[in-house]
């Protein structure tokens, strides 16, 4: 599950308990190769900017991919790193989306403020529901996440005056980003905004995942009892990770609300949670970049196939899912690497 992950961040940390005898000198120690957290963020920023420049007519699609990637990234923190199987992650996305939209409509339509509101809403819902959810494990936990998400969706539907319910929440226009870049029809501003937000989100996620906190959470994933025996406050760590993931999911939701200028109940739906999980597994859970790859590939496939025939798209995705289980992506990538002459 954790192959290929980095073990310590670039910033210096104390090595773990050293044996009293045989201290290796710093010169002998072979530190594991680590990638600084800003590197993957820069790569994403570069790819996103290149796509933005090269495909001016597909900027809507680029924005959608960036938002999906951020959402699935936050899911990876929960499922891949913390090992909590959730089918209710859309609740955090939708909370961020509605919060940002309501804020833009009723208070102030500045995008960055709205983004902060979305982050806060996602984090708040995550910590409140997390306090309840982390008491449970496995299938029970999974079903409870579904329950929480459906309860939030029902509340959103009831609060018609705030959320617009089935009609969707519209009527707000975002002010120019940073006071200068208006949200244009072609989506140029929106696309760069989303890609930048994704890069920042990835940086944050990398820092979290590679930090001692992140390692502790991975440890809880692998063996809860052992971590508890080591004195780790298991529940607190899990709630903290869930909250951080909620913040990122809320950010993705806020981006969606702002770039689309509309929020519908589908942003809280079970279908969205399930789709995100599928994207994550396709790309590979636990490594963060798998979330990005899965989101990008799935969204692109969906866009192309669904415009040809929406039902037949289900043949494709169903087939891909079944194939992925029969031949797991890890083995496929490894086989490919071997064939291309690299080391395993």
């Amino acid at each position, binding site marked *: 599950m954790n192959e290929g992950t980095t073990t310590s961040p670039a910033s210096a940390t104390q090595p773990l308990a050293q044996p009293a005898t045989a201290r290796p000198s710093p010169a002998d120690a072979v530190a594991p190769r680590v990638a600084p957290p800003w590197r993957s963020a820069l790569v994403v920023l570069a790819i996103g900017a290149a796509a933005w420049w090269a495909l001016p007519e597909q900027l809507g699609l680029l924005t959608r991919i960036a938002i999906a990637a951020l959402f699935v990234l936050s899911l990876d923190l929960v499922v891949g790193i913390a090992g909590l199987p959730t089918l209710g992650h859309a609740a955090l996305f939708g909370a961020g989306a509605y919060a940002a939209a309501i804020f833009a409509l009723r208070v102030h339509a500045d995008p960055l403020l709205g983004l902060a509101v979305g982050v806060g809403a996602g984090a708040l819902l995550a910590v409140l529901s997390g306090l309840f959810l982390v008491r449970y494990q496995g299938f029970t936990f999974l*079903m409870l996440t579904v*329950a929480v998400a*459906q309860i939030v969706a*029902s509340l959103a539907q009831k609060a018609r005056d705030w959320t617009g319910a089935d009609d969707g929440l519209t009527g707000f226009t975002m002010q120019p980003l940073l006071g200068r870049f208006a949200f244009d029809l072609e989506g140029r501003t929106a696309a760069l905004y989303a890609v930048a937000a994704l890069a920042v989100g990835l940086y944050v996620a990398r820092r979290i995942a590679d930090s001692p906190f992140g390692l502790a959470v991975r440890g809880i994933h692998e063996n809860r009892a052992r971590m508890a025996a080591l004195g780790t406050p298991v529940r607190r760590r899990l709630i903290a990770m869930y909250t951080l993931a909620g913040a990122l999911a809320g950010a993705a939701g806020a981006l969606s609300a702002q770039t689309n200028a509309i929020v519908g109940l589908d942003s809280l739906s079970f279908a969205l949670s399930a789709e995100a999980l599928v994207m994550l597994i396709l790309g590979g859970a636990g490594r963060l970049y798998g979330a990005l790859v899965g989101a990008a590939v799935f969204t692109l496939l969906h866009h192309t196939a669904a415009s040809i025939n929406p039902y037949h798209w289900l043949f494709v995705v*169903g087939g891909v*899912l079944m194939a992925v289980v029969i031949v797991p992506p890890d083995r496929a990538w490894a086989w490919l690497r071997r064939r291309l002459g690299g080391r395993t």
Partner: protein
Amino acid sequence: MLTLLSNVLIDGMAYGMVLFIIAVGLTVTLGLMRFVNLAHGAFAMIGGYAAALLTREAQWSFWLALPVALVATAALGALLEAVVLRHLYRRSELEQVLFTIGLAFFLIAATNALAGPQVQLIVLPPLLAQPVDLGFRTLPAQRLLVIAAGLVVAAAAAWIVARTRFGIWLRAAVDHPDTAATLGIPIRTVQCASFAVGAALAGLGGVLGAELMPLEPYYALKYLVLVLVVVAVGGMGSLVGSLAAALALGTVETASKYLASDWGSLFFFLAMALLLAWRPNGLLRR
């Protein structure tokens, strides 16, 4: 007030029975094979579609179409189990979830390709289509059939599990699979047969519940959540638990439709969360 109460109970029981009949197969599969089969909703859909096509297109009588549809669904279930699904028993839960979701997507697309996207109607015989006047309430006879069928299924399942050899094999295989195998119990047969019966029961639920849960290609995933909820609350592998959970939750959902319809399914999921939080391993287990 009394009318309201009796309405809620009757409609709640009917709805609960449909959920129970569909959930039986899933809870047995989960409890017996520890196999998470998210394509279970597809069996309900296939059973319903088979009955719809036979009664509408081939003009068969409902009473003939129903058993044929069930046998067909059972056969499909047995085939899938023997050829594909049993290789997944040893895989992780996440992989089972993924594969069966993929299978469900595939079946949705196939259903749409074969029968189109519109809702399928099952032609009911005049006996079932007419309203029955119970004095305090008029309801379609079909609803009474649903309740009766649920009771029959529950009773039959209880009897089979407690009194027949197959039931003993089933219980042994659930509780101690390795020991059971050592004792010569044909585990593979038990697994395949239970899967097929579960699929057939799901099909029955699909046919009986077609009024409450319309048959269209997305059926396979749309109502899956409800069935999973019943299984989770009732406890995996517990038939009595599923019955209790289905009736309780069905009644809560129906009551909320009568009394607080603009709250949607809030109370259903609230009740579910509370029940699960109180008894995480199932209603009847500690």
